């Protein structure tokens, strides 16, 4: 019975199930538009951000972990010293997410009633920094020091065999905070996953204050007045950042194969490498002929698709779904915004293409190390 249950979890945890599920849930939990907000309200999902909701979330988390720890495979992965921070990260992120949104929804409700946010009430009064702030900071330092010391005593820092450049461990993993990038390597070439995306992420983050021209919600927690910004941010932050790290750390085993949380990391596990390039799909499967020798001719379909993606989509979106956004941001801001969005969206798109059509590369020019 329990085995069956674990098996189901293992299957559910597979990226091609888990990931779409999370995206769907995300859309409703963090509604980006008024329409979605209505659905959210109707489903009562907002109740997650109340004290009871918090208790429920944490009860679920703790129960889940508690149950998981009874399984040796799960235990082995989760209690590996270098993975402990990620477990902590899960709890902290969930907690602070709940904590932030709870305050945000409270403020939203106040706003709906025509009141100013809680912070504004507080801000009416000024306080001398000595001793209140200095003191709590001091206490925080003490607590965090104590935490570090206890942590250091309980968990030894990992130290494996001496470095051996000829024997690579299987799997070889980057430091955990880069595992999101490494996970992307499954779907993209290193120059995209390892160079282009980090650069874009950095630039994108830096651009946030300049793209988001919504003046509301400064200096207090809120959701409703900036739901678009928050939803997009949380999508990156929670799904494309934290969730990918968790996948990379806990669910990727030997040969970078996927393993469910309760699955044994069997080196022999095989995953069918049945991926093919777009050009092969077009020429070999659809047209039933050989690949052309001319590179440009061979890859023209992929190149067209890419061009279309980056030129047509913004135009269409500006006229349809994102009309409001376009109006609010103006052409320059909108262009920058949409390029970042499309780049970001390319990851889930590529994932789906892989899962559904076994597409390896849209454009594959190994002659120039250029694979997209």
């Amino acid at each position, binding site marked *: 019975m329990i085995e069956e249950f674990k098996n189901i979890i293992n299957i559910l945890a597979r990226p091609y199930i888990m990931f779409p599920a999370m995206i769907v849930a995300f859309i409703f939990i963090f509604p980006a538009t008024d329409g979605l907000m209505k659905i959210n309200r109707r489903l009562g999902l907002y109740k997650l951000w109340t004290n009871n909701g918090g208790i429920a979330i944490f009860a679920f988390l703790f129960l889940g972990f508690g149950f998981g720890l009874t399984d040796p495979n799960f235990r082995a992965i989760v209690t590996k010293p270098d993975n402990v921070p990620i477990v902590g990260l899960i709890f902290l992120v969930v907690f602070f997410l709940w904590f932030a949104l709870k305050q945000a929804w409270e403020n939203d409700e106040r706003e709906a009633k025509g009141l100013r946010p809680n912070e504004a009430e507080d801000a009416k009064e000024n306080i001398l920094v000595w001793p209140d702030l200095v003191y709590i900071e001091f206490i925080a330092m003490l607590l965090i020091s104590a935490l570090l010391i206890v942590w250091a005593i309980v968990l030894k820092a990992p130290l494996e065999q001496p470095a051996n450049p*000829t024997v690579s461990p299987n799997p070889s993993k980057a430091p955990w905070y880069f595992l999101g990038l490494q996970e992307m390597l499954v779907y993209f070439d290193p120059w995209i996953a390892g160079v282009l995306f980090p650069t874009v992420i950095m630039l994108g983050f830096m651009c946030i204050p300049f793209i988001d021209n919504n003046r509301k919600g400064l200096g207090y927690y809120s959701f409703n007045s900036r739901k678009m910004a928050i939803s997009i941010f949380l999508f990156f932050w929670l799904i494309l950042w934290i969730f990918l790290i968790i996948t990379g750390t806990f669910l990727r085993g030997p040969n970078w194969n996927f393993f469910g949380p309760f699955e044994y990391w069997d080196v*022999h596990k095989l995953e069918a*490498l049945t991926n093919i390039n777009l050009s092969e799909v077009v020429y070999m499967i659809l047209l039933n002929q050989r690949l052309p020798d001319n590179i440009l001719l061979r890859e023209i379909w992929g190149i067209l698709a890419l061009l279309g993606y980056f030129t047509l989509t913004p135009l269409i979106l500006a006229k349809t779904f994102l009309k409001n956004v376009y109006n609010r941001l103006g052409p320059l801001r909108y262009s920058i915004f949409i390029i970042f969005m499309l780049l970001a969206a390319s990851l889930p798109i590529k994932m789906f293409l892989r899962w559904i059509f076994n597409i390896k590369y849209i454009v594959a020019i190994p002659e120039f190390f250029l694979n997209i």
Partner: protein
Amino acid sequence: MTETKPSTPSSNPTPVPQPPTMDRRTFIKWSAVGWAAFAAVIGGYGTMIVRYLFPNVLFEPKQEFRAGLPEEYQVGEVSERWKDAYGTWIVRDSEKIYALATICTHLGCTPNWMQNEAKFKCPCHGSGFYMTGIHFEGPAPRPLERYRIFLSDDGEIVVDKTRKFQQEKGEWSDPESFVTV
């Protein structure tokens, strides 16, 4: 810096005691020269740092070795000459010479070449590979890897272990993965 603004002289009717030496153009010239030179200096510093990052000599263990002339290898022979020193088999078939890594793709043991059965056999878990490196028995998931191989200026074979070619990725057709003889 009022002088730099083109509007200043007209907007400032009170005569300012200015040294009557340089006209505006010489002034701009000097300042431009100065800043250009300064920019060049900064560029020079930057270049210096970049160049500094690339050492002139390396102390890395050699990843490349010379394996003698192609004539030293018989057609159909798997040479074990460089197995111990460089972890490489040099194989010559009727058309080409290639270098196989002596690392089993299963768990990394070193297989043995069985001359009589014409196959590589891994002693750890029994994976078997043909002379080409293709796996045909045992748990090995993929063929043996090949190293980059080329002829030096004086006709000697050079094997470069920094680059590997994997059959399952279709890399064995890469012209650097073999030497035609």
